[in-house]
């Protein structure tokens, strides 16, 4: 009897219909919160952009990434001074039915919902992780939060002109504004649901996106297609379809059809690589991002990336570099090796940082930890943004012991190298990376105990140590919030010093002046040139050891017609996924 009761309590909802087309997606981590205000991770966004609507989204197939209207009925009207944006949103869009609404029926989505959704980020009670996107940018918004976040109080720069028109008034031109409205942070939430569920809104999201969440736990999120979702048909040409790149994925059959195509969606959160891989091979999930330890088993060639015959016969493959990078950074606030008021010592410190950078071997890092698939590039403008300079000198990413030793000798560092701390989250791989780094700097004279490892139990503790300036050197990764080099260059802007995003505490007036100049510039040659100047300053000052963009290799079942993507704000592609039948799959394989 006890077992029976246990079983009853442990039961999940029975499947409603075995014949439904359900796309089963795997991810390597579970999201913590599904509230758009806290959608700071790829994993959160994977759910958020499928349950909620954003004004804009990224085109399905176009690369570099391009925006497309989603809930918006087109791109905004922008005033001549670039300060006033007027957005029109689609009419007739409704939130999914939910007990939070009177009678349980979802009402129409209006511009007031967007105002409310952005306001929430500035409400101190919400614990927003996305307020920085609009902080100081929208007239009166910061003050509204500081004055008690009274939702009845109007905000000069953020108002709904009518149910379908939103006006944003900026404090200064902000060319990235439209990008921010494609971020999961900007997703529209209904006030009724936020108030009805309170803090549990973070696990019981209600939106107007293509899918409705039906269950969520640390292992699985399940969704049903939102029957109210109607965005017309998929236009492959508009989405950036190219026959040479996408022709083998079977997407042509979907052109001109209304989406979403599947009846349901499952996102399986599988932390362990072995389990995720076995689930994929056994057909329990439709896709996998190939774990490092399977790379040699799956590929016959790394350049170009080619699957072995068995894998190629069974699965589709797509590879591409991440929208982000990994890098090492110095704490420039430390006068022993960072900024120094004495120009001579400042120059010597710069030489020391450059020597450490030159001693670092990116190729070895790439081969050892990224199976040689990473894309090593100079500077901090990552290859995936349009401002990337493919012709930039690679001098800063070359392992050059001669140059390193020469710099140390020239500035008298020999025999008086400082002791430095190297921070990392606690993990075997991080420790291995540290040991590799330590072996490399030993080649320029650092003794074994001069670089001391400091490991932290959680990423939060590691982050706290960086923000408190306790670490001399740290290696981190950065994922782009939008495809604009400004997103990585802001990491070096002086006023953003810790606890802000400038973890390096880099403070260069020349850089800051350029950065401020670019803040109001629209995309174009002039802005790109300034971005590249800033990039060069960061390289010349040896603030970072940078960088490497990792390559993702995605595999998926040939039965599934899609192109998976988790970069920037992964998840938008799921509305375009289709499950083909077996005869179609066989035809595609042939």
């Amino acid at each position: 009897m006890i077992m029976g009761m246990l079983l009853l309590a442990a039961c999940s909802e029975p499947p409603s219909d075995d014949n439904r087309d359900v796309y089963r997606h795997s991810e390597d981590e579970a999201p913590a919160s599904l509230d758009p205000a806290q959608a700071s991770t790829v994993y959160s966004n994977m759910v958020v952009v499928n349950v909620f609507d954003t004004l804009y989204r990224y085109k399905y197939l176009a690369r570099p990434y391009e925006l497309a209207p989603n809930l918006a009925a087109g791109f905004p009207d922008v005033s001549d001074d670039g300060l006033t944006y007027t957005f029109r949103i689609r009419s007739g869009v409704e939130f999914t039915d939910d007990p939070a609404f009177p009678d349980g029926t979802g009402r129409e989505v209006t511009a007031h919902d967007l105002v409310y959704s952005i306001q929430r980020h500035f409400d101190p009670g919400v614990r927003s992780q996305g307020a920085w996107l609009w902080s100081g940018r929208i007239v009166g918004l910061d003050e509204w939060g500081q004055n008690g976040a009274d939702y009845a109080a109007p905000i000069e720069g953020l108002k709904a002109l009518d149910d379908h028109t939103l006006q944003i008034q900026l404090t200064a031109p902000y060319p990235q504004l439209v990008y921010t409205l494609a971020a999961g942070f900007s997703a529209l939430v209904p006030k009724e649901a936020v108030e009805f569920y309170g803090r549990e809104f973070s696990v019981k999201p209600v939106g107007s996106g293509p899918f409705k969440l039906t269950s969520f736990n640390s292992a699985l999120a399940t969704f049903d297609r939102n029957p109210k979702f109607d965005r017309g048909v998929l236009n492959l040409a508009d989405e950036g379809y190219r026959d040479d790149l996408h022709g083998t994925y079977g997407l042509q059959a979907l052109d001109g059809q209304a989406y979403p195509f599947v009846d349901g969606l499952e996102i399986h959160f599988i932390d362990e690589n072995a389990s995720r891989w076995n689930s994929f091979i056994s057909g329990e999930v439709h896709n996998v991002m190939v774990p490092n330890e399977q790379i040699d088993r799956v590929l016959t060639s790394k350049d170009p990336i080619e699957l072995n015959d068995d894998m190629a016969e069974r699965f589709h493959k797509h590879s591409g570099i991440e929208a982000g990078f990994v890098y090492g950074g110095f704490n420039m606030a430390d006068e022993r090796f960072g900024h120094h008021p004495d120009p001579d010592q400042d120059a010597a410190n710069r030489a020391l940082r450059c020597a450490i950078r030159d001693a670092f071997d990116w190729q070895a890092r790439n081969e050892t930890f990224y199976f040689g698939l990473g894309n090593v590039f100079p500077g901090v403008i990552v290859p995936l943004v349009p401002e990337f300079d493919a012709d930039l000198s690679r001098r800063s990413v070359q392992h050059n012991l001669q140059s390193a030793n020469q710099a140390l000798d020239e500035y008298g560092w020999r025999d008086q190298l400082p002791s430095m701390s190297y921070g990392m989250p606690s993990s075997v791989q991080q420790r291995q990376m540290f040991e590799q780094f330590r072996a490399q700097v030993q080649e320029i004279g650092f003794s074994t105990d001069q670089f001391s490892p400091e490991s932290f139990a959680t990423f939060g503790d590691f982050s706290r140590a960086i923000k408190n300036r306790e670490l001399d050197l740290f290696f981190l990764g950065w994922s782009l919030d939008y495809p604009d080099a400004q997103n990585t260059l802001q990491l070096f802007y002086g006023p953003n010093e810790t606890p802000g995003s400038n973890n390096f505490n880099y403070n260069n007036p020349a850089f800051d002046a350029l950065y401020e100049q670019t803040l109001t510039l629209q995309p174009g040659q002039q802005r790109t040139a300034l971005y590249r100047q800033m990039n060069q300053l960061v390289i010349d000052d040896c603030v970072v050891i940078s960088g490497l963009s990792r390559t993702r290799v995605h595999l998926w079942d040939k039965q599934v017609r899609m192109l998976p993507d988790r970069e920037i704000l992964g998840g938008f592609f799921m509305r375009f996924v289709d499950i083909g039948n077996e005869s179609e799959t066989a035809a595609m394989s042939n």
Partner: protein
Amino acid sequence: MELLSYVIRKLIGGIPLILGVTLISFVLMVYFGPDKTFELLSKNPTEAEIAQVRAQLGYDRPFLVRYAEYLKEMATLDFGFSDSTGERVSSILSRTIPVSLALLAPGFVLGNLLGIVLGLVAAWYRGGWVDKLIMGGAVVGMSISFLVVIVAFQALFGVVLGWFPVRGWNVHDLPSYAYYVTVPTLASVFVALGYNTRFFRAVLVEEINRDHVRTARAFGARPAEILFRNVLMNAMIPIVTRILFSIPLIVVSGSLLIESYFGIPGIGKVTFDAITSGDQPILKAVVGLTAVLFVLILIVTDILYRVVDPRVSLTGDAR
């Protein structure tokens, strides 16, 4: 009446234990556990935002105030909301504990029953080839990493044979329960059996050498009768102790690997995530309820001692 007064006495006696456990664990959480602040902040936080989040997490309040709140939460069984997900802690517990129990119960029962049977057989044939075979198998089970067993079983039953799923927990009736619980159960029995068999054999061998067993043999009692009536029943106290005291550990921590690798949303994975992320509301609930569970098991264990051995007195009087 004797039983009731005993239970009440023990429950009152358990209060200092619960206070001690919660105090020590709370000290560890507060002073040595992860700081959640920076996981909840944006990429570009201000000092004011840091202070705000710390205040929301209660980090800025004195330790004793926070501990008093913890005790109040224990008394009311209201632990608030998870700092990570925002879900109510009581909802998390009521959702995950039944899953863990349903997941682990078959393995727990089978592991112990088979362990006792194999222990009895090995003890009866002590020194012979049967004993060596069983003990050899036990050593093999103990020597192989649980992780290796899990991955190998997943590959064998899920990928190669395709009989069972590699992972998941889509349980809605008895057949689906059997479908999803079989491989995790086989994996846990495979590993637990080695430890259990060795322990039970040691206990039973000691009992089998006693005079009353020799006397029973001299009277010509059948081996099965001797093993069950004379050996097993007289060895029940250490067996009951081991089985009952393993329950809290199995529920809270023993299921971690299984739940992680089989993608089962139970309390073990939730607890592990709470420990590694510093989610104090969940940790406080798990630690506090585990302490209460230990107290209850102490009581049940004493009562069972009385059941299996009438010489044991619940009042402490010698018989």
